[in-house]
Each structure stands twice: as structure tokens, then as C-alpha cells.
């Protein structure tokens, strides 16, 4: 009997795998007018729906809304126990958003994230860990307004980049 098997080569430990399906601590954000305006300014989107209240009220939306990727600023809370990130560097692989309704200024949005899959690939940067997470955004009436499914790639040894591990 051999003491090593193929599973010994994976970076996905039983502890890491145990995070699949675990929900992050819920965090609720009030969608604040100036935060929306600042986000729209940072991405360089001049759409008056994000900043001109009078105009926004004159449209079928009835008031100011947030840009579709504003959800990126509504950071999910941590997991009940610390996520054991094995790698130092991080890359964002992409996002898939599904929208049920626009987020309006003044909404209260509750954010919950869970990891739905973990897998690894071997490439020019060595072993890379792919983490697929689904983030649910629910408003003050309990309606799911949107989900974002993210792919996060981590790789490489060494000192962790600041920000790695928060994600």
C-alpha cells in the first residue's frame, strides 16, 4: 500500500472543499445617492439615471438607479470560519449577472455569497485554483433583485497580495 495517492497532489484540501455551499455572513447596505454617483463617475458612465434625480424621476424607472455593476461595491461578509486560501496572487475570471429589477437609490440590499464550485487547472503560472461563487442580492421587501456568479482564480506562492483572502 502506498502512502501517497493522486488526491495528495491537489490544492483542494478537505477543509477547502468543506466551504462549498456555506453561506457568508449576511451584510445589508443602504444604496446611498452619493455612493452611486461616485461609482458612476469612477467607471466614467455619464448616464443621468445615476445622478440626475429630476431626469430619473421623469422616466419609467421613477427615480435614480445604480449602474448594473454597482454590486461590485457591495462587498459580501466573511464566512463563519476563515477561508483557507492556499495561493498568493489573485485574478478575476469573470462575472455573470442576472437581474430581476434595477436597484434604486434608497433600497436596502442584503448580500449573501456562497462558493458553488472549486476546481484546479495547470497552466503557465503553475497550479491555479478556480473558485465559482454565487452572490445573491435581496432588497428590503425580500425580493431577489440580482445574482452575480463570479470566477476567481488564485495562483502562486509567496507573500499574499493585499486584498487576497478578502475575496
Amino acid at each position, binding site marked *: 500500500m502506498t502512502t501517497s495517492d493522486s488526491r495528495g497532489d491537489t490544492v483542494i484540501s478537505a477543509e477547502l472543499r468543506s466551504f462549498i455551499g456555506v453561506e457568508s455572513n449576511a451584510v445589508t447596505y443602504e444604496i446611498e445617492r452619493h455612493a452611486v454617483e*461616485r461609482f458612476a463617475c469612477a467607471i466614467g458612465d455619464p*448616464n443621468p439615471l445615476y445622478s440626475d434625480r429630476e431626469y430619473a424621476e421623469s422616466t419609467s424607472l421613477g427615480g435614480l438607479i445604480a449602474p448594473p*455593476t454597482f454590486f461590485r461595491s457591495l462587498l459580501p461578509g466573511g464566512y463563519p470560519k476563515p477561508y483557507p486560501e492556499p495561493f498568493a496572487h489573485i485574478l478575476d475570471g469573470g462575472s455573470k449577472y*442576472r437581474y430581476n429589477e434595477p436597484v434604486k437609490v434608497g433600497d436596502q440590499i442584503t448580500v449573501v455569497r456562497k462558493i458553488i464550485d472549486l476546481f484546479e487547472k495547470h497552466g503557465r503560472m503553475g497550479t491555479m485554483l478556480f473558485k465559482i461563487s454565487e452572490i445573491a442580492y435581496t432588497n428590503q421587501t425580500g425580493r431577489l433583485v440580482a445574482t452575480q456568479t463570479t470566477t476567481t482564480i488564485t495562483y*502562486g506562492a509567496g507573500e499574499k497580495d493585499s486584498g487576497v483572502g478578502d475575496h
Partner: protein
Amino acid sequence: MAITNSKTGISPLVFEDVAVGDELPELVKNPDTRQLVMYAGASQDFVAIHYDQNVAREAGHPKVIIHGALKSAWLGELVTGWMGPDGRLLELDVSYRAIDFPDTPVTCIGKVTETRIEDGIGVVEIEMGLRNAEGLITTPGRALVSLPFRADT
């Protein structure tokens, strides 16, 4: 009859006006490192490869890189600016296939690939992408939007 918004003078886009093959007006972005810092602050994404040259090099990049999510925001702007205030964004998918760097212009492009009526709603599918200076699509994407019918505006 379409109602023109009294403030902008723009008639909203309606489903009947859209056909497969229509191209969205191109959106050119030329981000500098200042914009990356603004985006880091606005989005709370403080991963240092977006503002610290040394950290970016240690992670294997030639210089600081553009946040993938900022590229998503631009593709979001491309489609929401085109559909206007009576359109509704239903889906937005963006995949970061290659890295982009500040101080180089990129162009957001999009094309209508499908129009259909689903449960009485006019739905339009758009294939999008972020094209770099070499002509490579670094960031493919797609969007699904609903547009009002002319009779409803």
C-alpha cells in the same frame, strides 16, 4: 406613438426598431492609473495589482492591470446607454480572457444576435466585447435586454 423625453429630447429605443446584425455605437475608453484608483475606491477593490507597480510585477504582470470588473462596467455602459431608460438589462456576462493595461485605449463593441418575444416581452440578445489596440477581443461578453414595444411607449 413614441413619447419623447422632454428633458433629453431622445425617443426611447423600442423592440420594433432592433434587428439581428445591428451594431451598437462603439464606446472608446482610455483609462489612466488615476481612473484605476478611483475605481478601487468606489468599488472597494483594493487588490494591489491595480495600483502598485511592484506588486503587479511580482504577480507576473509587466505593470498594473485594469480591474476586470471595470471592463464589465464599460460593457454595461455600452448596452445600457444603447437601450435607454425604458430598456431593462436582464443578463450581463463578461469573461476576462486577456489582461488590459492603463494608458492604452480600448473599444467596447456590440452586435444584436437575436430578437424574440418571450412571454409577451421583447427580448434582445447582444454579443459584446472589449477590443484592445491590437484588435484582439480581450473581454468577450453578452447581454440580454428587454425593450418596450412601440405601442407601450
